C-alpha cells in the first residue's frame, strides 16, 4: 500500500490527538463526582464536629457534655464515611469509562488505609492521657488534623501513579489543614469544613469543566 508523506503526517497527527484525548478521559474517569462526594462528606462531618458540642451545651444551659459530644461526632463521621463509600462505589461502577482491576485495587487501598489508621488509634488510645476540657479540645483538633492529612497523603501517593494533579490537591489541603490548626484554632472545624470540604468540591467541578 502506497501513501504520501502528507498522508502519513496527517495519520500520525490523528493518532497522537486520539491518544492525548484518551489520556485526558482516563485522568477524569468519574473522579469529578468522587471529589464532590468526599468534599460534601468533609463539609458535613466537620460542620457536625463544630456544631454538635455547641448545640449540646446550649440544650443543657452550658453544662459540659464532652463525652456525649464525642460519641455524637464519631457517629456522624462513621455514618458519613459509610455513605461516602457506598456512593463512591456506585459512582465508580456507573461512570468509569474503563473496566479494569485497578478500580478494585484502589478500593482495597483506601479500606486498608482506614483500617491501618483505626488500629493505631485503637492501640494507642489507652496510653493517651488528656486532662482538662481545654487540653481535650486541643487534642481533638490535633487528632482531626492527622485524620485529615492521612487521606491527603494517600492522594499524593495515588497522584504518583494516576495523575499528578492529585499530588497538588493533597499538598494544598494538607497545607490548609496545618494553617487552620495553628492560625485559627478556635475555628478549626469550620475552617476544615469550608477550606477542606470546599476545596474537594471545587476540585470536582474544576475537573468536570476542564477535563471533559
Amino acid at each position: 500500500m502506497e501513501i504520501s508523506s502528507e498522508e502519513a503526517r496527517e495519520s500520525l497527527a490523528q493518532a497522537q490527538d486520539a491518544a492525548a484525548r484518551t489520556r485526558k478521559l482516563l485522568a477524569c474517569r468519574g473522579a469529578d463526582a468522587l471529589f464532590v462526594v468526599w468534599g460534601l462528606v468533609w463539609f458535613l462531618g466537620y460542620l457536625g464536629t463544630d456544631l454538635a458540642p455547641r448545640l449540646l451545651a446550649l440544650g443543657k444551659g452550658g453544662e459540659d457534655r464532652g463525652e456525649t459530644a464525642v460519641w455524637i461526632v464519631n457517629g456522624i463521621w462513621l455514618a458519613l464515611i459509610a455513605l461516602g463509600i457506598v456512593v463512591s462505589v456506585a459512582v465508580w461502577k456507573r461512570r468509569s469509562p474503563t473496566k479494569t482491576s485497578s478500580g478494585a485495587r484502589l478500593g482495597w487501598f483506601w479500606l486498608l488505609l482506614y483500617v491501618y489508621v483505626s488500629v493505631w488509634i485503637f492501640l494507642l488510645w489507652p496510653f493517651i492521657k488528656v486532662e482538662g476540657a481545654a487540653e481535650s479540645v486541643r487534642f481533638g483538633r490535633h487528632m482531626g488534623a492527622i485524620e485529615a492529612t492521612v487521606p491527603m497523603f494517600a492522594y499524593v501517593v495515588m497522584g504518583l501513579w494516576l495523575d499528578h494533579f492529585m499530588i497538588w490537591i493533597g499538598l494544598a489541603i494538607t497545607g490548609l489543614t496545618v494553617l487552620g490548626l495553628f492560625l485559627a484554632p478556635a475555628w478549626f472545624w469550620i475552617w476544615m469544613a469550608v477550606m477542606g470540604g470546599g476545596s474537594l468540591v471545587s476540585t470536582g467541578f474544576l475537573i468536570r469543566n476542564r477535563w471533559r
Partner: protein
Amino acid sequence: MGRIDEVIHQSLRLQIMASLITLDPRQSVDFVYLRDLLKATDGNLGAHLEKLEAAGYVKIEKTFVARKPRTFVSATAKGRTAFEEHVAALKTILNMK
C-alpha cells in the same frame, strides 16, 4: 521497519486503535465513551469496530453494569503489534521523504 496496515489505515479505525493502545493492556473502554471521544455515531463506530474485531485487533465484550447493558472494547496483543508496526511505517515514510 513496520508495514502499512490497510485495516488500521482508515481514519476512524486509526483513531480507535490509537485510543485503545493508550489503555493498560488489561483495560477496556466503554463503547459510549469511545463514541463521544472520537465524535463518531453509534453505527459508524460499530461498523469499524466489527472490521477491527474481524482482523483480530480488538476484543468486544458485552456485559451488564447496574442492570444496564454496556459494551467494552479493548485492543488485543495482535492489534497492539499491528498498530505499532503501522505507526513505525508512517514514521519511516516521513523520514525517507
